[in-house]
């Protein structure tokens, strides 16, 4: 597969790179794991195969061999040889065909899966791109005009998948305005009033929103915290803590709330007050700069139930294919 135009930020991603958080290595991987997984299944791949993740503005790619592909996630008006192609559907391309995209109409991130997977060399058992230290994907960076990506051997029945499609009712809509979070970690630092104000406020995604994290704009946070004599080693600000680990999906309060995404910084010295439930990290990955969301506190059991509902939906989709 040849890249004719890299779009805004297009990277190779898979389910992520695990087991290295303790050396400061975040998982990376597709920001919207649901869309990544379904794209792979549509073309007969295992969900561990790598896909292309495109952000806001799609790429233009040329297939060098006959291929079966599927596009999921944000709708960027894909077209093959200038003919519109359906999303959430397995489609056949012939050698030499060009697949192109426009600006995302709804949602932020779109995924292209190709039968056989994007077959770049795995690094630490993952093909995911982590640009900060330049590993994984294609040369550890976003794709550019002229890059060539190897495609793996498709499953024997890949051709039979052409035309299969996900039911409309099982496709996510990307107009989420409420994000479920489990409050906790160091939320004891919030006053009762501060906690209420955090959960009641509308938070707007700033233009500092990328694979590392989303910074939000909203009310002043400094008076949401309990004044205290700071513990040794924390530093004097009310939002300073002794440097600790940040879960992916956690909300840290560094001047404004920041939610850490899949290229997260793995730790630091700003207070964390809760964690977005894992399926809703996918939803957040499809929210756009200037979108406004509010946070809804759920308990641990409810969070697990939300996770199970997503697993059940994926299972239903898998059975339908």
């Amino acid at each position, binding site marked *: 597969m040849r890249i004719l135009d890299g779009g805004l930020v297009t990277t190779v991603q898979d389910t992520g790179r695990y087991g290295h958080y*303790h*050396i*400061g290595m975040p998982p990376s991987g597709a920001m919207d794991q649901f869309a990544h997984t379904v794209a792979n299944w549509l073309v007969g791949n295992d969900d561990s195969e790598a896909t292309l993740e495109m952000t806001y503005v799609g790429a233009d790619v040329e297939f060098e061999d006959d291929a079966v592909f599927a596009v999921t996630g944000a709708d960027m008006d894909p077209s093959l040889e200038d003919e519109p192609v359906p999303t959430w559907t397995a489609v056949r391309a012939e050698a030499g065909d060009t697949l192109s995209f426009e600006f995302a109409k709804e949602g932020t991130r779109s995924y292209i899966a190709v039968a056989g997977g994007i077959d770049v060399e795995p690094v630490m058992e993952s093909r995911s791109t982590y640009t900060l230290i330049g590993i994984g994907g294609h040369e550890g960076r976003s794709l550019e005009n002229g890059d060539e990506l190897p495609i793996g051997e498709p499953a024997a029945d890949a051709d039979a998948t052409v035309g299969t499609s996900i039911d409309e009712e099982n496709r996510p809509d990307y107009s989420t305005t409420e994000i479920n979070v489990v409050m906790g970690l160091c939320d004891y630092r919030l006053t009762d009033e501060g906690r209420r104000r955090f959960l009641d406020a509308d938070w707007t995604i700033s233009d500092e929103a990328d694979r590392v994290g989303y910074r939000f704009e909203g009310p002043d946070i400094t008076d949401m915290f309990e004044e205290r004599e700071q513990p040794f*080693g924390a530093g004097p600000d009310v939002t300073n803590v*002794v440097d*600790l*680990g940040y879960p992916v999906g*956690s909300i840290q309060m560094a001047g404004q709330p920041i939610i850490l995404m899949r290229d997260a910084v793995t730790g630091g010295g700003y207070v964390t007050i809760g964690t977005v439930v894992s399926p809703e990290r996918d939803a957040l990955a499809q929210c756009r700069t200037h979108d406004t969301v509010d946070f809804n506190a759920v308990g641990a059991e409810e*969070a697990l139930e939300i996770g199970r509902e997503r697993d059940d939906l994926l299972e239903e989709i898998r059975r339908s294919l």
Partner: protein
Amino acid sequence: MSDRTIAKQELPSPRYEYGGDDWVFVELDEAMSFDANFKVQAITQEIRRNSLEGVVEVAPSNASYLIQFDPAVLHPDELIDELKSLEDEIDVAEYQWEARVFDIPVFYDDPWTHETVMDFRERHQDPDSTDLEYSAEINGFDSVEAFVDHHSGAPHLVTMIGFVPGLPFCFQMVPRDEQIEVPKYEQPRTATPSRAIGFGGAFTAIYPVPGAGGYQLYGRTPVEVLDVDQELSGFEESMVLPNPGDILSFRQIDREEYDAIREAIENGTYEYNYERVEFEPQAFFEDPRDYNQRLLEVLE
């Protein structure tokens, strides 16, 4: 008991917290101490040894740790029960380990971090001084030189790796009343040179790659702490140089030595100066000055 010993800190009951549906955060103490860190390291090593089904990540930090798990395999309450019983079983008094002692040359007050420090004065508590001048003053030192002598005068224990791959957080191996403490920048900088030596709270950090940062900046080391391609000597086992439990000795160098080491790093001929030692916490607590002196002798 002389004031040269390091007093034992009694730890409160740990806090076990849910992180969404797939993480558990355990805080052994809100304050930093060697006791909290040693217990964190001992527990997380035991969790790794037990390899509980469904555990995805085990990440120790300074006085707390994080576990990521697969909720389809392991219920967080079952995990927390397991962690609580480990917490009861582990006796840190018996705990000791093989550490590597590294010589880390540092060009304090170097031109590159100085330029960064001056570029971001408006984000700092004291825009009219440098980070070194400010830190020396609020810690009661008469001069920047005395402050630098203190920072490089006793070794530092690596107590956490994180933020970005390979970044060591280091806690100086001296009694609490001799430890430096400084705030982080009021607003984080958007730029930090690679290999910058920073300080925030009670921790020294070495920034492996250029990027954002909130720590006060004191200098720059010519040596790498992250080598993604594992081509330099010292990186045979891992792309990161020190692990938690290793010891760093910061040594003041000048521009000439900085340039010479940098050249050796760039042409791949630099040999890191480090030795393996058996680190014994009790002996260290009883007489840190004498113990540190013996530790550093292995580098000579």
